[in-house]
């Protein structure tokens, strides 16, 4: 077996040196009832690399890869071009096969990268401090709600209706067990987000208001207005961003007054991957909240010879020290995804990020205009970045399924996100990135034209 270096000779020598007559001697503590007489049944035996690769390739080919389609899906996961050098770097054995950097003397590569990553995220979000990443955007969102509870000592979170429904579900699920109260609703399908309605729900018991920016329908809510309202009631504003590329074109949530900014970082460097692993981003605008943050933090220090170095720090917040009193039970970050994000962001730089955002927006505007010209299609949004909602004269979900037969992945229907919710059946979320060609846009428009005529 190719991953096992011990030879039978080795095994014999080792058993002898420990004074065991057979390997079974080492498993004497296993109760009789649980002893098996051989390899577990109903499972295949070992296989060559070639055979396994073939099997997996067969499964892979049963999927329609985005590159082989005209592709318009977003709703929290965005397809962008990732430079080839990103993957080369994350496949360096020293990054890929390293452990959590608990031994900083031999983990400066990971630690310096995390320090750079934290700085990049903090600046992108307009915040003071970002952590070393979390599982994904949805769990980061819940952690932010929990943190707001710790900071404000209140336990009622007000969620915007236009927060990604999966994020809402995650928050509600967790809250069931902690006893937090969650106020949420479905989005209003209108050109502009219902800020007034949201603000009206904030009261003196509110720990936080959670707003997505751009929101699930692609609209740009006025964060500054909500921040002011929240702060006036002593609540925090949590801004959620699922498309970091947008922040190359629009103002950062931190600047607009958000206290905690969380989001999904997948769009930069990570890829679609059928939903995971992704990259949770988490930052706070005010340094004073650092000790209430969940997750790992990397900090600068010096070594015994006075050289700059980096370590994981403030771990007294964490579970392996605090056990049942920890700020979170999290003990993993998305280290390798954070590396991919950081490398991609370094390649982009400010200039590249702005260009990338501009190109996304240009193509999205183009697509919106072309779609709006089709009879039976209405563009809902007045404001958007690279994703917007259209209303079709028909069942959007069925249309999406039909178009997929012709290798057109037209977008995410609102019915997929909100199954069974009244009045959403016509809605379709359309995302456009730099990977979308003008030809793809034409393909979608022609297909819709035909379908709706």
């Amino acid at each position, binding site marked *: 077996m190719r*991953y096992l270096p011990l030879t039978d000779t080795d095994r014999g020598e080792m058993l002898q040196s420990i004074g065991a007559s057979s390997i079974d001697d080492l498993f004497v503590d296993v109760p009789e009832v649980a002893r098996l007489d051989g390899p*577990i049944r109903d499972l295949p035996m070992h296989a060559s690399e070639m055979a396994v690769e073939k099997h997996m390739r067969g499964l892979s080919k049963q999927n329609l890869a985005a590159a082989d389609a005209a592709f318009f899906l977003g709703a929290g*996961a965005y397809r962008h071009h990732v430079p080839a050098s990103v993957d080369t770097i994350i496949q360096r054995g020293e990054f890929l096969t390293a452990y959590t950097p608990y031994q900083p003397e031999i983990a400066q590569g990971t630690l310096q990268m995390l320090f750079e990553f934290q700085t990049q995220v903090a600046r992108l979000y307009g915040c003071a401090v970002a952590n070393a990443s979390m599982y994904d955007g949805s769990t980061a969102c819940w952690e932010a709600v929990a943190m707001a509870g710790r900071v404000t000592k209140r336990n009622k979170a007000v969620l915007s209706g236009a927060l990604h429904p999966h994020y809402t579900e995650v928050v509600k699920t967790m809250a069931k*067990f902690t006893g937090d109260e969650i106020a949420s609703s479905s989005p209003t399908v209108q050109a502009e987000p219902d800020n007034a309605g949201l603000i009206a729900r904030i009261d003196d018991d509110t720990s936080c208001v959670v707003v997505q920016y751009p929101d699930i329908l692609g609209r740009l809510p006025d964060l500054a207005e909500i921040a002011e309202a929240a702060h006036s009631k002593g609540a925090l504003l949590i801004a959620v961003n699922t498309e970091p590329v947008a922040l190359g074109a629009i103002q950062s949530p931190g600047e607009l007054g958000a206290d905690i900014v969380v989001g999904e970082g997948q769009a930069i460097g990570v890829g679609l991957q059928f939903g*995971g692993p992704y990259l949770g981003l988490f930052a706070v605008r005010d340094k004073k909240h650092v000790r209430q943050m969940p997750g790992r933090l990397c900090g600068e220090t010096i070594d*015994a010879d006075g050289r700059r170095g980096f370590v994981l720090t403030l771990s007294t917040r964490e579970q392996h020290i605090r056990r049942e009193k920890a700020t979170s039970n999290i003990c993993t970050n998305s280290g390798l995804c954070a590396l991919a994000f950081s490398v991609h962001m*370094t390649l982009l730089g400010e200039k590249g990020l702005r260009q990338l955002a501009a190109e996304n927006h240009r193509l999205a505007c183009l697509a919106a205009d072309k779609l709006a010209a089709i009879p039976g299609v209405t563009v809902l949004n007045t404001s958007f970045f690279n994703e917007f909602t259209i209303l079709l004269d028909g069942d959007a979900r069925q249309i999406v399924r039909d178009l997929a037969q012709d290798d057109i992945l037209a977008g995410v229907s609102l019915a997929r996100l909100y199954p069974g919710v009244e009045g959403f059946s016509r809605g379709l979320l359309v995302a456009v990135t730099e990977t979308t060609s003008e030809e793809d846009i034409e393909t979608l428009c022609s297909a819709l034209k035909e379908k709706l005529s």
Partner: protein
Amino acid sequence: LEEALIFEIGTTETTGVDLPDVDDSAPSRLGKFARTDEIGLPGLSEPQTVRHYTRLSRQNYGIDLGFFPLGSCTMKHNPRLNEKVARMPGFADVHPLQPVDTVRGALGVINELAQWLIKLTGMHGVAMSPKAGAHGELCGILCIRAALEARGNAREVVLVPESAHGTNPATAAFAGYRVENIPATEGGRVDLEALKARLGPDVAAVMITNPNTCGLFEPDMRAISDAVHEAGGFVYCDGANFNAIVGRVRPGDLGVDAMHINLHKTFSTPHGGGGPGSGPVVLSEALSPFGPLPYTARTADGVVHLVEEESAEEFAKEHFGGPLQHFGRMTAFHGQMGMYTRALTYMLSHGADGLKQVAEDAVLNANYILRAMEDVLHAPYADSGPCMHEALFGDAGFEGGLSTLDLAKGLIDEGFHPMTVYFPLVVHGAMLVEPTETESKAAIDQFITAFRSVAERAKAGDESLKAAPYYAPRSRLDETMAARKPHLGFIDPE
């Protein structure tokens, strides 16, 4: 060896991509939100970028470079086939919300992996979506809570052994339970009688690690499970140490109700310097209906189903004969697909026979180290019989104020990553050594030579160990200063 920060070498005008220039006159739908200020993100050209990260990487240690004897963390070889498979376009370049007819192969991967996990553990169902071990633990406890609530009483207490991973009590507390410790016997096992005495209608669950964190198999495991079940509680097993028994012992046969599986430990998805992980939770028949969405479960007809919000109601009616009971959703989308492909590839490579050999070689290697070290280092449970995949030592006999930490740092100078230190808490100055099955006898012999030599220095009170490491990219870092004056991001010089 010094590598500057990107903020020191990059500029906001440099970029390593070629994109069209921004046309400020282009029409925009950004309204008043358009960004005008500088963000402060430095860019590097591609050659600079590749060099920066290549140089950084060389300050890291990884499995590809050497042996990682990390107890409880199972740092094994990461096959590159797994990386190749994860990058196949049908897995890497598909969106989680594509119409299901366009992702049958991706769902197939999840189903196939779920079947493997169920069969390897002898359990009934599996919740695939948890993002990491601790997330899986949480999932398991929430299942238990949901099942108890469905019976009308969530109960109040979760029993946890003293030697448990820190996540165990944190998880139980998060789920609203009070944590109580279970004492250990002299032999390093759970005290069955004490446990039985504590069981009662207020105990929701026992969280147990088996093999336990002292590296020992709990011989009373089945008896423990029976007692807990009799008292109306559930048995949660921490699966961090599954590598010791994979393919040889099925937790389901021991009465376990829920166990998370760290795909990045037992099934060799790379640690990546701290993640991403993946922590599916296998569930007993009693707990299966309560798993979060999305999840998979094997029904009486032998088919494994993938259940999402939409179909959950229908599925529950048809297969559980009752109303919807899932406890909610733990994450967006379907979980860690990229880890599933790697883990499945690994399982298919090893097969049932290979995985059994994995456990056997891992346990053999650990016992070999235990017996090679016990004359030099205090091995608290060495007399009670063989260990499983980890060998545990303590710092008894160290002289000159030298600590386990000093020994660990001394090992760095010998070219090894240190073992897990100060865990489990039940042994003073604990050192937990887990060789895994992917180390050769030659590598282990080298390690033993180095470990013995440093251990002897510690026992001789060799002062020089206090300033170790000497040959690493950095000497000992001042962690206290880092925590006292947190400096958590780069600040531009004035």
